Each structure stands twice: as C-alpha cells, then as structure tokens.
C-alpha cells in the first residue's frame, strides 16, 4: 500500500476560514495568491464590500514579496472580483457584484450530476469516518458545547449561520481524534461550503439541514456509532437531493455575463 504524506508539518494551518491568508511558500507566487483570494470571494468567505489588507500586509500574511501581492491584486481587479478606491479611505475592496450565491449556482449548473454525486460520496466517506470515531471517543460534554454554540447563532444571518455550521462540522470531525481525517474534512468543507450556502437561502431547507446536523450531533453524544453514521447518511441524501433539484431548476440559466472588465473566471 502506498502512503501519501500528510499535509505539511511546516507550521502552516489549513483551517477552513483561516486558510485563506496563510503563508503560501515559494512555489506559489502571484497565481496562487490570486487563486486563494478568488476562491474565498466566490465561496463567500470574503464578502462584497469587505476591505482587503494593504499590499504590504497582504504580502506579509502570505509570506510573498510585495510585488507578488501587487500582481495578484492586479489580476483580481482585471477579473472584476475586487475594486480599488483611491483617497484617505481607499484600498482594495471585494466588488459589490461578487455574489457567492451566483457563483455557486453557476458552478452547480456547470457540473454534471455524476461529478456532484461523486464529490458527495467522497465528503460522506470522510465525514462518516469522523462521526463514527467521534461517537466512540467523544465525551458527551464536548458535543454539548458544539450544540450550545449552534443554539446561540442567529440563523437569519445567513453568513454567520453558514460559518457556524461549517465550524460545528469541523469541531465534530476533530473529536474523531484523527488529525488526518480532520484536515481532510476541513478541505472538503471548504469545497462544499458554497453549495451548502445555496441550501441556506431556502428557509425550509435551511431548517431541515439544521435538523439533520442536530440529529448527527445527538447520535454522537449518545455514543452510538451506527446511529451516527445513519444520521449522517440521511443528512447527505437530503443535501444531494436538494442540490440536484436546484440544479435542474436553474439548468436553463443563461451564461453569466462577465462580472466586470476582463474575461472572467
């Protein structure tokens, strides 16, 4: 059997939300900086109107030269994802037209059903492994803390709700006590979060998704690995069915006009 090396141990966290502005290493450079920020904008991690750090701060955060950061910002500007304002309150801002729901809808419509289902199988395989281990290993008090945090979230604030739900899944994954599975869950959560945010826009579906997440947490708190995995499968069935129905509804969507000057993503 061949073992692939785990994520780098070079002190570079890959956590979903914080992963965006981490040092990027030498091989990265402008294109990687550009892609990292573009993905964060299209995924809704960086919201319209949000101000990016100054060029020098950005360069320091990514661990690249200021000229590299400048090149990445220029490319993002040409794609219409950011705008630059001059003056005292100037700087680079996420473009108002950068709507993550629109990007996610486009990505969903453009992907085939087989690709979507395959991605969901991968997500389910990793999450099920995490949930099963967590059910065996977690102290009920640790799950109660995750539930208590979810209870405090105002679910009318969609961005806050999405972030809290993603965090809850990652915290649950970490209770597997497996660093590898947790890192993989974080990567997959980053990939899926924009699609899950589509579900959040439908109030009924959002309530259903929330009930599914709670059912998984409850089964893990009960220390029942079988019930936990069953609850997770039910949750994934709901998610995939909803996304495929949404995809069919929007299949006739005309191609997106470019978000701004340039050729678009």
């Amino acid at each position, binding site marked *: 059997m061949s073992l692939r090396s785990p994520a780098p141990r070079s002190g570079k966290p890959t956590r979903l939300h914080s992963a965006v502005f981490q040092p990027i290493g030498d091989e990265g450079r402008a294109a990687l900086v550009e892609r990292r920020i573009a993905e964060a904008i299209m995924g809704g991690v960086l919201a319209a109107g*949000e101000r990016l750090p100054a060029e020098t701060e950005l360069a320091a955060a990514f661990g690249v030269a200021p000229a590299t950061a400048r090149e990445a910002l220029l490319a993002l500007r040409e794609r219409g994802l950011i705008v630059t304002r001059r003056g005292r309150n100037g700087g680079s801002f996420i473009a108002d037209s950068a709507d993550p729901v629109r990007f996610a809808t486009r990505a969903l419509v453009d992907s085939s059903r087989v690709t979507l289902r395959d991605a969901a199988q991968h997500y389910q395989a990793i999450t099920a492994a995490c949930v099963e281990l967590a059910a065996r290993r977690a*102290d009920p008090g640790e799950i109660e803390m995750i539930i208590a945090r979810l209870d405090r979230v105002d679910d009318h604030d969609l961005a806050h709700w999405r972030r809290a739900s993603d965090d809850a899944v990652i915290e649950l994954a*970490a209770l597997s006590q497996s660093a590898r599975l947790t890192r993989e869950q974080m990567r997959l959560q980053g990939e899926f979060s924009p699609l899950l945010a589509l579900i959040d826009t439908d109030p009924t579906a959002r309530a259903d998704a929330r009930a599914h997440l709670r059912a998984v947490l409850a089964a893990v708190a009960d220390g029942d690995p079988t019930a936990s995995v069953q609850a997770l499968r039910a949750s994934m069935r709901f998610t995939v069915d909803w996304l495929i129905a949404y995809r069919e509804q929007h299949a006739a969507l005309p191609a997106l006009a470019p978000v701004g000057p340039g050729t678009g993503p």
Partner: protein
Amino acid sequence: MSIHPAPPASRTAADHPVELVTEYFGRALDALDDWRGRLAVEIATARADAPLTTDRLDALVEPSALALFDQLDLPVYGSGFIAALDSLADANSHLAWWQGPERAQLVLAAQSVNKEHIDYSELEWYRVPFQTGRPHVAGPYVDYLCSDEYTITVAAPVHVDDEFVGAVALDLLIDQVERHLTPQLAAFGDDISIVNGVGRVLLSTSPARETGDTIRGDDLAGFERFACAGMALDVLIAR
C-alpha cells in the same frame, strides 16, 4: 479500582511511572510558571506607557517564546501567548504564537484581514486557565487552529493585578511525546497508559490501547489509577 496518591516526585531517575510522567509535563508547567510571572511585569510596564496593541504584545512575547524551544528538554512544537479576549487596543483576540520547525509566527486570517473575533473562549487551553486561575495540561486534541496535528497544550494564566490578561502556553505533538515517553515507560515492564481528565488515552505501552480512545466506566476496573500531582492526567497500570 483504587486511587493511590502519587509517590513523592523526584528529579532523578523515577521509581514509579507516575513520577516520570509528572516530572515530564512538570518541566513545561515550571517553565510557564516562571514565564508568566515575568510576562505579567512586562505587560504591566508596557500598559503604563500606552494601551497595548498586537504589535507591541508580539514584541514582548517573541524573545521568551522562541527561547522556550531550546530551553526545555521537551519536543516543543509551538510556543507563545494567547491574549485575553477584548484585552488589546486594536483587536478582539490575538495569538502571539510561534511554531513548527521554522518557528514561524502564526498568522490567522481573522487577525490579519478584518480583525474579526476569533472566539477561543471555549477551547480547553484558554477556558481552563481562565476559569480556574491555574496552569493546565490540555488535550490530547486535534489542534485545527494552530498546529493542525494531534497535540497537547500546556497553558498557564497571566494576571496583572488580579486581572486575567491571557495565557502563556506551549504545544507538544503526541507523535513526539510518544517517541520520548513510551520507551521510558516500557522500561517499567508493566502495561502502562496515560489518560487525561475525560479518560482519553494520550499514549500507552500496550499496542492494544489506541491513542485517542477513552477508558471509562467498567473498563477502568482492570487498572490501578495513579493521579499526576498538579495536572489533570492519570497513569493507569493494568492489574
């Protein structure tokens, strides 16, 4: 099962596994206890001049944080100071933290981008020193904020005039602790495990007991339990 008090600690060759474990993690607790006293004075002095900012705090913490890597006979993976929430002039939360083989400073997006609140108030390495006012050995846990690895964090609260201003801390990776401690524990010849406050196995001389599993309830009947003084760790020796 019976709970025995720990035999008196000794700095020389340990007579009992619980002494070995208590001495091992005690090195981290002692170093942090020393540092938190010094840092409290430095923070109080700095605050007397002007409100404390993240940059000024980083400058105060960095020399001692980096020194800790070499000063201790422990595989220190990360070291630094976690500021009390809402205690700094320019950010809601801040980790002045150095880690990894390159001892690079940790930069979290939420700190560098929009100064957004990172809520670490419920994480064990912050919550327990804050609530109890005492040093704490936290974990093992998957640290998805800093190391991204299976980690133990030893943390000690820092107080300025009875005000909690944050915690000094260091990370040890279980991978390295296992390499260090398992052979030394195995030398005692018994089936020995170290477990934390919720019964989670940190490491064991028995390959049958997995790190990360929990030993609790009826399973405990097969062990004699020895508490490590001053930390929420127990040594379990199979009967």
